[in-house]
């Protein structure tokens, strides 16, 4: 296990993660980021909006960015033309 910090950036603002999460690897941290983006977007949808312009930076404890997950990677949009 290692500690990963998931910093959130979107149009609402930047939210630094000072607590972090203990996860087995970067892949697990990516899964957690995807889950988080879906959680945030689902709240937005209940308010009648969805802003895909955002990202979560996954950093190690030393501050190094290990991965970036964009909001658009977390959902598939389908609509009839």
């Amino acid at each position: 296990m290692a500690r990963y910090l998931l910093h959130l950036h979107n149009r609402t603002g930047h939210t630094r993660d000072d607590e972090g999460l203990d996860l087995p690897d970067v892949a697990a941290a990516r899964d957690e980021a995807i889950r988080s983006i879906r959680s945030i977007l689902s709240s937005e949808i209940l308010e009648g909006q969805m802003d895909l312009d955002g990202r979560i930076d996954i950093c190690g404890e030393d501050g190094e960015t290990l991965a970036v997950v964009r909001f658009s990677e977390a959902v598939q949009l389908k609509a009839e033309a």
Partner: protein
Amino acid sequence: MLDAHLKKLRARDDISAAEEQAIRAGVREVIKVPADGLVVRANQPLEVCTILLSGIAARQKDMPDGKRQITEIHVPGDFTDLHSFTLKRLDHDVVALSACSFAVLPHKYLEQITETQPHLTRVYWFGTNMDAAIHREWVVSLGTRSALARMAHLFCELHIRLGIVDLTRGDSFDLPITQQELAEMIGITPVHANRTLQELRKNGWLEFAGALATIKDLEALKRAAEFDPAYLYLERGRR
């Protein structure tokens, strides 16, 4: 040792000296549990109940994918698992969220209380009914309130519950739990919980950092939560 527990009981009813003595006489031991330590494992046979003396504990259900839902938070004074007296096993875990100490009372002793102390028995029945009322309110939160309102509601509830046992300092109180645990109470992810707390802070309603919660604007927080404390049965009366 049982001061918080007696304060909680006396906030809602008179507890006589004899009843207080009957409670105190039931404590067989005091156990210390480290943060994240399991106090009760789901579906194990139980012969004792525990009263939370210090720290923050919770009832939780573990999901097969490793996630968990916290279904109630416990503050000092709570009879954490009195319902195990009749259930004899629990369908959920009881976990220490911070380092905790608990008083342990055997079911056999509680059985004696039901036979010799009818009023105290009703007071404890009232206590488990109140736990059910809190569960109902949490269901309402999960089913109808926004993430922001759920978080606001939780802090309004804690402010009252900790106030009853004199663990608030004005509008501040210690809350030694993580954002991840807050997230698991209100059904969102830790990142989403962090963002939600930031919104509450930006609005000037609530600060939560370093295990310290400070309510900056209680009325605004209550409005955002649609908070009505009726479910906490704050009125004193004969049970």
